[in-house]
């Protein structure tokens, strides 16, 4: 039954309405001619609704005319009729097909190339290298040899440690991981100068001339280890011969004590009566010391080691409103030195000791008094 239903749908069928007296005769003649009718429904003695194959409809209508029965189609169902309707909408169908075709055609190309993972390398360079290896907007997806592109990227960009190519839809994605390169070796002449005002507690010189001793007080910008060669030495002569400043790269370690000072001021809120309670003073004191400590801790470098701390909290009741001032002084043992390069200039003969990064600590190298 299901097969028959399907078949009727494939062939197309018509729901007919027959109006007249000789309905039995109409059915008999139609069937005798080979037609199949189904779901006959005789609503009234003079009205019949039935279904028949589309191919038989015209013949039945003709028979009906002969018998005085008016046969009309109520509804046409099935694949051929649906197709017929579509055929009438040919333009629509054509545009649809064109659209699908266009979409399919366009989807076979790579339209975008994306780069992931670049840090120092410009993404455009990766895109350009990928393009030269066959991955660029406008190429057929099937033409992109992923291994080839990866090899090309490695060939052209030695700074890439790893690369992968992925194509998803119209988007080609290049993933790269850059080689982590070591920092350029420290070289070039220069001195080690004080980065902080402080008190030298330790000095180790591995290259250059130590200028300070344990116990010396140094000021920010003051040279600690000089890279200047001693005049008259072989190294000095060789440098002068090639026209370079007689300066080498000072190396060493100077550590000592640096003092940090943090201050904070907190107003004491008076209570309802306008008086200042002891609790309020204590709370403001705590607040002020915390703020002072925070300010100090922020200034201390990560390698610093706090040795001593001295906190002073003073209430100033005369001020209005009354305030609490906290002053924290911390002494920190830390690295004091900082390398300060010397720009190579031919005429410089040792006087070119200059703190470039500071700019203001310009001046002659001053040896501490012995």
């Amino acid at each position: 039954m299901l097969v028959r239903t399907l078949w009727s749908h494939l062939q197309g069928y018509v729901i007919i309405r027959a109006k007249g007296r000789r309905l039995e005769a109409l059915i008999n003649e139609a069937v005798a001619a080979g037609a199949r009718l189904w779901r006959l429904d005789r609503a009234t003695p003079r009205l019949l609704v039935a279904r028949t194959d589309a191919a038989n409809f015209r013949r039945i209508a003709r028979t009906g005319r002969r018998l005085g029965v008016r046969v009309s189609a109520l509804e046409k169902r099935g694949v051929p009729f649906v197709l017929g309707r579509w055929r009438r909408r040919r333009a629509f169908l054509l545009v649809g097909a064109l659209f699908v075709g266009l979409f399919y055609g366009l989807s076979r190309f790579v339209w975008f190339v994306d780069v992931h993972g670049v840090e120092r390398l410009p993404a455009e360079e990766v895109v350009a290298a990928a393009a030269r290896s066959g991955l660029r907007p406008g190429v057929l997806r099937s033409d992109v040899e992923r291994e080839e592109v990866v090899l090309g990227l490695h060939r052209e960009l030695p700074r890439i440690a790893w690369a992968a190519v992925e194509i998803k839809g119209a988007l080609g994605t290049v993933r790269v991981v850059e080689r982590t390169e070591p920092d350029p070796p420290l070289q070039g002449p220069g001195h080690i100068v004080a980065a902080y005002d402080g008190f030298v507690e330790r000095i180790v010189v591995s290259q250059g001339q130590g200028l300070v001793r344990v116990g010396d007080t140094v000021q920010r910008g003051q040279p600690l280890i000089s890279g200047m060669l001693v005049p008259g030495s072989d190294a000095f002569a060789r440098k002068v011969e090639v026209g370079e400043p007689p300066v080498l790269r000072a190396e060493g370690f100077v550590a000592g004590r640096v003092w940090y000072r943090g201050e904070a001021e907190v107003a004491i809120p008076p209570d309802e009566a306008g008086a200042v309670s002891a609790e309020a003073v204590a709370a403001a004191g705590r607040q002020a010391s915390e703020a002072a400590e925070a300010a100090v801790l922020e200034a201390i470098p990560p390698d610093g080691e706090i040795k001593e701390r001295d906190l002073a909290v003073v209430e100033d009741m005369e001020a209005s409103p009354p305030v609490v001032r906290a002053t924290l002084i911390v002494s920190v043992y830390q690295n004091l030195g900082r390398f300060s390069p010397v720009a190579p200039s031919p005429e410089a003969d040792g006087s070119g000791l200059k703190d470039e990064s500071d700019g203001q600590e310009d001046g002659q190298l001053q040896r501490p008094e012995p």
Partner: protein
Amino acid sequence: MKRERGSVAQRMAKLLELPAEIVLDLPKTTLVGGMQVFVENHGGLLSYAPDEIRVRTVQGEIVISGRGLKIGSIMPRELVVDGRISQVELKR
């Protein structure tokens, strides 16, 4: 003549164990429960009403009575009647 030939055909059918309705064009009426009647080798409709459907066959008239009768399908050799069938009668 006709009888003679019919009897020969009848004997042939029996001998070869062929179904009589096929060899002899006899109507075969099948009643499925009280809701469906199949009439094979029918000779057309005589009348069609919701309470009575009369079918012509070579052997006479088959009258199907009931309520809400409908012809489920009709083809040159087969007729299916659906509905609440109360009586199937062969009128010779």
